[in-house]
């Protein structure tokens, strides 16, 4: 009897285990291999999903998150995958392959707010379906103007939610950039001329990076956080320089009579792309971060390119083109398209998301600008809520 019961117990146990684990283990099951089709430019075509079971804010946040990660909510008959779940109490959600009903993802989330749990779920879905890094839990920083000549640095979630002022200096600030997750680097006029500072978010400590005679501005932090590229006019003209992140080891990279502007780094940290008026109207150039000869980055069809931003996957340089209006454009970083730029939408100063798919940018008249999100392959745009009078110069934490 005892032996029998022991056996029965083990048999039941084994059955329950196998029954319970099989579907749950399906997330890693090769049976549900995900078809990833790409568009002409090599971007992943949006994966059609149907989202159900969520309501109100949870529903809209989830759909918005997914949109900028290449996963698009569509009517059920057009969907390839089903996303079901609920956000009552805590967020619970499931991702199912529609034809086979195989479960790819099945999770619950605790801690944080419902919004944060939804963001975590969205990231899990995007990673499962696209293989790209999730961006729903990322942050951005931007400049918010409260009046002419008075602006502050802000940080917020990537979708503009939960914005917080980082500075309260009542002066002009400009071009904030992230160094890791806990430090910003930006320009401030607090001490008179524009100078570059680092700002440690958790301690509040601020230190100068560049405060040379003349102008110090447009700092760009290298991907590994060890260096900064910037524009200094100490030598009598705005030129491109690099230095260590504490400002030491300064090195001049350009020596032109006309102005250089707004550098950015390639994701491997080897190259710098920047704008220069060396040949009259602005052109984009690239040069080795260790110094060397600049080469023109052709942007055919997109005149007067400025403010480049190199995508984290290294493939694209996004920039602003100006004719009568500003246009957000991209061009392959290493040739391709024969140097023809692709015009995406009206706006200026793009900043790539970590997934090399979405861009943050701003749009609008001077001193009344608004931030927007752009899904590059589909050109879908979502305008974000405005803080104070004018928002510009977004920079996505990578």
């Amino acid at each position, binding site marked *: 009897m005892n032996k029998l019961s*022991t056996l029965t*117990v083990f048999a039941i*146990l084994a059955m329950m285990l196998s029954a*319970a684990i099989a579907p*749950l283990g399906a997330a890693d099951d090769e049976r549900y291999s995900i078809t990833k089709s790409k568009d002409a430019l090599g971007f992943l075509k949006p994966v059609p999903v149907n989202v159900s079971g969520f309501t109100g804010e949870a529903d809209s946040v989830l759909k918005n998150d997914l949109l900028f990660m290449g996963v698009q909510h569509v009517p059920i008959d057009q969907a390839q995958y089903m996303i079901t779940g609920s956000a009552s109490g805590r967020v*619970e959600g499931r991702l199912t392959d529609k034809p086979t009903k195989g479960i790819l993802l*099945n*999770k619950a*989330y*605790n*801690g944080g707010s419902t*919004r*944060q749990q939804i963001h975590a779920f969205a990231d899990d879905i995007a990673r499962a379906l696209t293989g790209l890094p999730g961006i729903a839990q990322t942050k951005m920083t931007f400049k918010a103007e409260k009046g*002419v000549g008075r602006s502050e640095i802000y940080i917020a979630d990537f979708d503009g939610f*939960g*914005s917080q*002022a*980082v500075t309260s200096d009542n002066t*002009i600030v400009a*071009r904030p950039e992230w160094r890791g997750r806990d430090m910003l680097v930006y320009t401030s006029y607090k001490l*008179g001329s*524009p100078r570059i500072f680092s700002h440690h*978010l*958790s301690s*509040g*400590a601020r*230190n*100068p990076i560049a*405060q040379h*005679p*003349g*102008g110090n*501005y447009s700092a760009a932090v290298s991907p590994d956080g060890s260096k900064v590229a910037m*524009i200094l*006019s*100490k030598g*009598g003209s*705005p030129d491109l320089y690099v230095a260590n992140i504490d*400002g030491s080891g*300064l*090195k*001049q990279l*350009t*020596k*032109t009579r*006309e102005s250089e*502007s*707004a550098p950015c780094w390639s994701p491997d940290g080897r190259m710098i792309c920047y704008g220069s*008026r060396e040949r009259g109207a602005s052109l984009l150039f690239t040069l080795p971060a260790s110094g060397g000869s600049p080469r023109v980055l052709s942007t055919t069809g997109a005149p*007067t390119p400025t*403010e480049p931003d190199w995508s984290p996957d290294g493939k694209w340089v996004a920039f*602003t083109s*100006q004719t009568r209006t500003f246009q957000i454009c991209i061009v392959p970083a290493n040739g391709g398209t024969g140097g023809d730029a692709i015009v995406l939408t009206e706006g*200026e100063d793009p900043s790539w998301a970590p997934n090399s798919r979405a861009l943050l940018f701003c749009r609008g*008249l*001077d001193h009344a600008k608004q931030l927007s999100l752009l899904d590059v392959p589909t050109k879908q745009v979502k305008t974000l*809520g405005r*803080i104070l009078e004018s928002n*510009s*110069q977004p920079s996505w934490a990578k």
Partner: protein
Amino acid sequence: MKLAKSVYLLTVVLTLSSALVGCKKGLNRTTSIPGQREGAIADGGPSQPRDLGQGGVIPPLNRGNETGVTPVNTGPGFDTTKDGGGIAAAHDDKFTGWIENRDEFANQTVHFDFDKSNIKPGEVGKLETVARKMKESFKGKALRIEGHCDERGTEEYNRALGDRRAVSIREKLVQLGLDPEMLPTITFGEEKPADPGHDDAAWKKNRRGELILLSPPGSN
């Protein structure tokens, strides 16, 4: 003993099965959201400036040195006098506390063509007047040159263009005999338009270089 073993096994089975029933409901794993300070980020809408440090107020910007940061090092053999043939910039720290007079040369504001930083021939006369007055009437005083742009052009592009415009005015004034060390420059890019309009007339006024007379503290 055997009974005890059965009870033990039964307990194990019950515990496991209840856990598995939980799983069957649909959860294989619960993911904790790490490290978010609730309330700090969770509330939406425009926020008031708040402290991101430990202290209560955002610490003031410091000028370095006392912070333990390595003083900026221009590196061995770095000759600032040869940068692109320009005249090394003057540091505005030298003029902290000097008294500003924006009226003296208000009529000598230099205007620029769209997307250009060269001094137009028609504007040179203004700078000749400024240079003469500085030499005749304002010995020991300084001149701050502010470079501005219209709104066409991205912000950092305009910051560099405004800088280049200020430098062009400075170069001309040095050529006319003024001391470069008494000519600090500052760029405002498109931050401070003279005219808030969004048309050609406003843009024309906004592409400019303003000249501000600086007098040492205690002088008149």
